[in-house]
């Protein structure tokens, strides 16, 4: 090898060695070759995270063995003001619109030999008010009934009077209201006033303990009463607090429950029994699915007993077309005006 060749090889080898070393060190110390981080997300793996969706079972039984009674049901607007079935707006299929919401109660009544009749609201009633002395369609139905279950909160003045007379003449009434009723048209105050009960704006929720949703709250009886017999706990959904001046049995939300309008804890009852009237702040607690939750089925059975255990003799007691004018209603707890709501045009 010539001298020049030797020197060239030495030059190139030196450069290659130094630059190769620099590249190698750079590569070895680069961050990109790290293995992926091992991230733990234990909060996704907690088995308690998965809510139990087992539907449960219902067994609605009645203890009453009295004679057959006729129970009238007005399921015209079970869920707020609008019938569930659009056909009901046309007066078609109204009896089927909320059939599910009341079916466990209806079945218990039928199985025990009682008669159930559905009152179908007349969509044109507002345009064709009954003539003087002529009974309203509801009044005519109530005249034959021993008990009345309603999911409606809005009635014409004449109908409210009929319901009031019905209650005064030993008819038993179950009113299933809900938190959306306060958002409907002129409001439910007239009926509440006639029945001597109150509803309070807002819904009750519970973030700590609930049935699969914060608005599905548990309620428990505070005193022993026929309505709450054998009931440990029931579920109400989006329920509004209800009240009455004197109560014979109540279901109150459990600890941790709060009212939507105040965001404060509340113990106001969600179901109240006063004399011939029971008002519930929820219209969904009797649906088949909810009947299967905790003791809702027991409560439904007790309510069925309440409806048929009355002193009413439908054949001899008003309301009828020639019934006496009703007496003044007793304002509950002095919270409502004596004359109810001012007369307003119904919403268009």
């Amino acid at each position, binding site marked *: 090898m010539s001298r020049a060749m030797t020197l060239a090889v030495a*030059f190139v080898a030196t450069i290659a060695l*130094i*630059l190769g070393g620099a590249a190698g060190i750079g590569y070895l110390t680069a961050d990109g070759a*790290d293995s992926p981080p091992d*991230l733990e*997300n234990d*909060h996704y793996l907690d088995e308690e995270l*998965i809510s*139990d969706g087992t*539907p449960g079972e219902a067994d609605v039984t009645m203890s009453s063995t009295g004679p057959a009674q006729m129970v009238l049901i007005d399921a015209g607007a079970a869920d707020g003001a609008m019938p569930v079935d659009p056909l009901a707006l046309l007066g078609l299929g109204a009896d089927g619109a909320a059939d599910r919401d009341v079916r466990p109660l209806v079945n218990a009544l039928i199985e025990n030999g009682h008669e159930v009749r559905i009152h179908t609201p007349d969509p044109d009633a507002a345009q064709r008010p009954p003539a003087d002395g002529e009974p309203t369609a509801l009044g005519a139905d109530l005249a034959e009934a021993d008990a009345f279950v309603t999911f409606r909160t809005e009635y014409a003045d004449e109908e409210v009077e009929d319901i009031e007379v019905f209650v005064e003449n030993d008819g038993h009434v179950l009113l299933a209201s809900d938190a959306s009723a306060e958002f409907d048209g002129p409001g439910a105050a007239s009926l509440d006033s006639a029945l001597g009960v109150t509803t309070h704006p807002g819904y009750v929720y519970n973030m700590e303990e609930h049935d699969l949703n914060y608005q599905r709250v548990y309620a428990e009886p505070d005193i022993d009463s026929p309505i709450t017999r054998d009931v440990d706990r029931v579920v109400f959904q989006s329920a509004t607090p209800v009240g009455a001046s004197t109560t014979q049995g109540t279901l109150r939300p459990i600890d941790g429950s709060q009212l939507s309008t105040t965001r404060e804890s509340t113990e106001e009852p969600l179901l109240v029994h006063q004399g011939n009237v029971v008002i519930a702040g929820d219209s969904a607690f009797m649906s088949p699915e909810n009947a299967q939750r905790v003791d809702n089925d027991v409560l439904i059975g007790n309510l069925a007993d309440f409806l048929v255990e009355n002193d009413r003799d439908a054949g001899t007691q008003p309301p009828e077309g020639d019934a006496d004018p009703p007496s003044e209603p007793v304002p509950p707890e002095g919270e409502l005006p004596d004359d109810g709501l001012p007369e307003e045009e119904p919403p268009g």
Partner: protein
Amino acid sequence: MPAKKYIEAFSMRQQVAIVVVAAAVVAGLFVPAVYGTTNEPADTVAVVEVEGPVNAALADDVETELTEVRNNDSVGAVVLKIDTSGGQPVASERMYKSVQRTSDEMPVIASVQDISASGGYYAMAPADDIYVLPTSTVGSIGLNAPAPSSSPPAEGPSGPDKTGSNEIEQWAQQQTLADTFVDAMMAERGDEFEMSREEVAHADVYLGTEAIHNGFADEIGSLDEAVHEAAERANMRTYEVDTRETGMDGGLPILIQTDDELVAVYSNDPGYADIEPMPFAYVYDGAVPHIDTIERFAADDVEAAVDATDATGGEDATDDEANGTEESDGTDDVPSLSREVSP
């Protein structure tokens, strides 16, 4: 030759030594460049935009960008520029996981612009710090879904749950979806939140001024300040900012509430294929317009256009918009879009 004379004055060994030293000097000049190409110093803060409704397209882009960021040695820190009211649960989770992994490797700071709520909050929660502006909106940790309801039996499907399961099972699934979100946020920021899990699950939103006190955010600061903080945490003396856009152009899809559900609309003039229902969503409800509102204002546009053509009634349309109430008694003045465009 004098040169040859000089060379021959050194022995062979001395000549080799001189060449080696010369080669080392030359190589030394190139060492920084060679080292830099294989181990590039981090001098870039990547600003990854997370804007518009959270959906699969946005999650795709955010994942791609953050993966590239992690593999790019020149990027030493990330700032998430967030402006979203949320969207699909899975897309939110994908971004959450991607941000979490990135945050494990380098400083990540979230900079909230107008709003980072629900699914948007989910995505940015693993960031080291959340920067908000005083009137930014953050929070809404929860699920948006309609109440399950039973429906008549559908004849034909192979199983009872093929077209919607039992009402109670749906309630349970929705609660699990909500709890998944809340638990993840408690895991990420439970130490920062100045409230209980139940209060977090109320799904409230907070302004920036409130959020820095209740733990939903860490600092009041702009995007620039977030970028600077990220660079400092990555020990960059000087830095460059590399902004990476994500999601579909024009901020699509548009989220719209109907009476029953939330829908994502993927076109300003949507056909059937451009509408996607979102039965479950991590969305801040207050930032999503109702279809009636959109129709009402769109109807005004149509009416104004018709009026302009007729050269009459232009003022009526303006009045309607000024009144701006849904319960307007002038229903004749505020027709629905369908009424207006129907022949």
